[in-house]
């Protein structure tokens, strides 16, 4: 039936919208569970969202999703119509959340191209069971819906709608038996539509079954036996046939002119006005401001990536034009340079706009954490509230995707391991309700995301002992800062929890968090005070795609140092450099001692400039740690498009990626954090 549809784009749309709706619903539920009540508008919203998901899923023939959504829709239909009292909010929330989980799980399978094999039966049964429980509470309402008597087949009972007419006046009497096509559905309403449209063209009208509006079961009757209509009209049979067959759902029509004058099948006198006057007043609902014109559109992320790539190409080609070697032969370039400045300004603005389009607020990612804290505090029997702030902080779409898992892990860790048990908090005289704070803020070119708990804090001694035992820390204890010790938990293979709980643990530890954050060129910082809690900060760059970089020359090679990590650069004098017994070079700048890394040595590049005084020193910083890089010369600042090193290369310490220069040559981007990292 659906062969005509190209499913791919629709599938994408379905996944996108249904997930969004599921998220929205989840937030609504969580917010209202706290309030312990369901307001009318919330009930409407839940009903509407489930109705939408049901409709879309049915179109895509995802029956499991459709039927689960349908069951919740039914439940809320009943709640909305009958307003039953004594609703168990937590039960309802569990049912809705369970359904949302099911829907999300199935959609995740769609994304991964797997079969939708989730069995919805138990869920639907649970919803149905609860529905019958609340129905039991206010029984009469249901009876009204279900007890409409079915029309016995063959029972002849006509109602007359318009009673004024007589059979004279040259009208012809007709009897039409209409059969609808087999896939038509809602036959009774189709029949009603026919009667309604016919009303304008005919004088007197009776039909069977008569209770098509009140009784939806008549649909089955009509499907089996057809819809029988009796009427008089001036119209010739051909015109009437045309009228009936115009309805695409009419499969088959038997239209007969009735010759004899007598009443057919003893039509009963009109007792019921079926066709209501249709000039009802339009509802005066439009109180909202009228200006709700669509100002948002949804765009495929792939297209945004393409746009970003194109802007990247533009930046590169701009460099190719402005640094074109042919320009060296030109006589006067004043006008050219003026044009170049304007050109560059426009490109920079374009770049900013494209970046801003890709920026997405963290709110969706943050809101997901509500659910985690809710579920965990319920299961772990802890009172924990999650305080969210700065959720409107924006980061690049590609980065956001990498944040969800690490954040979830941090929140779980905080709730599970950070926060003490109820008894323990009582014993320590801490507030009974524990707090986990999730905060985002902009600082410079970076975004900080902070997860803070007021739990027990990290056990420094235990971490140290374990890290030393596993050979993760070599330095003597006296040389280690607290932060360095805490950072040990980010290393692969480190885990202090002996008990693996349901939520955290299971072998995936903080190293996964660190890895995820590193993948977006971010860093993880850990602070903790015993008894007061732990703070984990994630420092994330605003964007991955384009950065300002300083080109530095080393022999024939060119490297890019991100401008944000450069503190200063200067020419050193011979003798500024001194060497420790381990042959580490150092330099003293304004009374402070910095380690020196010669790029030509580090990367084994041939260069003539090996005397400190001949080259240039660049001081770079990461997380308040400094390093002096020695290069041949600075070549100038440039916007560069960051590209990943080919996977084939593996990860190279101190190199974060590569880019293309104006001359078309590939060049490497230095990773300052990696260069500073102590071995």
């Amino acid at each position, binding site marked *: 039936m659906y062969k005509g549809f190209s499913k791919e784009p629709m599938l994408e749309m379905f996944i996108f919208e249904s997930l969004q709706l599921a998220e929205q619903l989840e937030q609504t539920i969580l917010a209202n569970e706290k309030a312990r009540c369901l307001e009318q508008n919330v009930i409407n919203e839940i009903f509407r969202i489930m109705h939408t998901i049901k409709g879309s899923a049915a179109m895509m023939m995802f029956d499991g999703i459709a039927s689960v959504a349908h069951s919740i829709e039914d439940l809320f239909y009943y709640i909305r119509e009958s307003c039953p009292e004594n609703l168990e909010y937590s039960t309802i929330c569990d049912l809705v959340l369970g359904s949302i989980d099911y829907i999300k799980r199935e959609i995740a399978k769609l994304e991964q191209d797997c079969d939708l094999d989730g069995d919805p039966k138990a869920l639907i049964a649970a919803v149905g069971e609860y529905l019958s429980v609340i129905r039991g509470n206010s029984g009469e309402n249901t009876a009204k819906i279900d007890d409409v008597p079915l029309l016995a087949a063959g029972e002849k009972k006509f109602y007359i709608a318009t009673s004024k007419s007589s059979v004279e006046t040259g009208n012809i009497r007709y009897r039409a038996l209409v059969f609808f096509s087999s896939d038509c559905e809602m036959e009774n309403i189709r029949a009603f539509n026919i009667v309604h449209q016919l009303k304008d063209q005919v004088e007197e009208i009776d039909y069977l079954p008569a209770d098509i509006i009140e009784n939806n079961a008549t649909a089955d009757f009509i499907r089996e036996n057809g819809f029988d209509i009796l009427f008089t009209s001036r119209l010739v049979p051909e015109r009437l046939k045309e009228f009936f067959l115009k309805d695409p759902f009419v499969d088959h029509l038997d239209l007969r002119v009735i010759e004899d004058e007598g009443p057919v099948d003893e039509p009963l006198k009109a007792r019921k006005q079926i066709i209501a006057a249709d000039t009802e007043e339009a509802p005066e609902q439009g109180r909202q401001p009228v200006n709700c014109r669509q100002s948002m559109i949804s765009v495929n992320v792939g297209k945004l990536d393409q746009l970003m790539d194109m802007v990247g190409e533009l930046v590169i080609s701009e460099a190719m034009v402005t640094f074109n070697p042919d320009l060296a032969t030109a006589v006067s370039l004043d006008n050219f340079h003026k044009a170049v400045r304007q050109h560059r300004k426009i490109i920079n603005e374009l770049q900013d706009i494209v970046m801003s389009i890709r920026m997405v607020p963290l709110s969706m990612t943050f809101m997901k954490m509500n659910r985690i804290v809710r579920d965990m505090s319920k299961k772990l029997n802890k009172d924990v509230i999650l305080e969210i702030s700065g959720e409107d902080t924006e980061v690049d779409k590609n980065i956001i995707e990498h944040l969800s898992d690490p954040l979830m892990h941090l929140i779980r860790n905080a709730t599970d391991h950070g926060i003490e048990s109820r008894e323990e908090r009582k014993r320590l005289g801490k507030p009974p309700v524990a707090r986990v704070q999730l905060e985002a803020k902009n600082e410079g070119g970076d975004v900080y995301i902070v997860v803070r708990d007021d739990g027990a804090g990290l056990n420094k001694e235990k971490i140290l002992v374990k890290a030393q035992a596993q050979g993760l820390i070599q330095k003597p204890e006296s040389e280690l800062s607290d932060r360095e010790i805490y950072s040990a938990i980010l290393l692969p293979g480190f885990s202090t929890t002996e008990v693996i709980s349901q939520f955290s643990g299971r072998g995936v530890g903080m190293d996964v968090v660190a890895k995820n954050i590193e993948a977006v060129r971010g860093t993880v910082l850990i602070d903790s005070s015993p008894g007061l809690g732990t703070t984990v900060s994630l420092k994330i760059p605003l964007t991955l795609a384009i950065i300002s970089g300083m080109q530095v020359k080393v022999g024939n090679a060119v490297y890019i140092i991100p401008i944000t990590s450069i503190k200063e650069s200067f020419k050193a004098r011979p003798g500024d450099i001194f060497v420790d017994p381990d042959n580490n070079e150092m330099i003293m700048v304004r009374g402070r001692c910095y380690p020196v890394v010669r790029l030509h040595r*580090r990367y084994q590049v041939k260069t003539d400039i090996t005397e400190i005084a001949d080259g240039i020193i660049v001081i770079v910083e990461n997380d308040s740690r400094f390093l002096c890089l020695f290069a041949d010369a600075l070549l100038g600042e440039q916007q560069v498009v960051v590209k990943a090193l080919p996977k*084939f*290369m593996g990860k190279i310490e101190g190199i974060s990626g590569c880019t293309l220069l104006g001359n078309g040559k590939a060049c490497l981007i230095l990773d300052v954090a990696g260069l500073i990292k102590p071995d």
Partner: protein
Amino acid sequence: MSEIVGEVGRQEEDTQKGKFLTFLVGKEEYGIEIKYVTEIIGGIQAITEVPEVPEYVKGIINLRGKIIPVMDVNLRFRKDARDYDDRTCIIVIDIDDLSVGLIVDNVAEVVSIADEEIVPPPDARAGFQNRYIKGIGKAGNAVKLLLDCQRLLSNEHLESLHQFPDQPK
């Protein structure tokens, strides 16, 4: 619709089946299945060196905006380095979404070698170590060593290399 696409794909594969691009490395002539080859770049363009990779990985090049690694097949086979000249080519191959350029001495031709003309390499149990050859093909009188691209690109060497300490102090 999807059926039709499948059909076309199969046809394309059929026309490529049994065809090999042959090239010279040192004295031997090697063959590589044509379906892996995406393009051939004549001459050597500027290669950007990348630190801390095996010697045979010469670096990265810009292939119309895409950055791909290039590998010297001579060095990969542990032969002596040879200078590049105007006959040196880069064959770009694409395996499992991984594009890699292979630096070879000279590209020869495209030949068809039927399955029955291909014999397996000698058994490893006979003390014959070979990691990169998956078969030996006969085309006319000549013998071509057919490369196993997957193994050529397997970066077990890279991984082991990364486990070494970064720099001598």
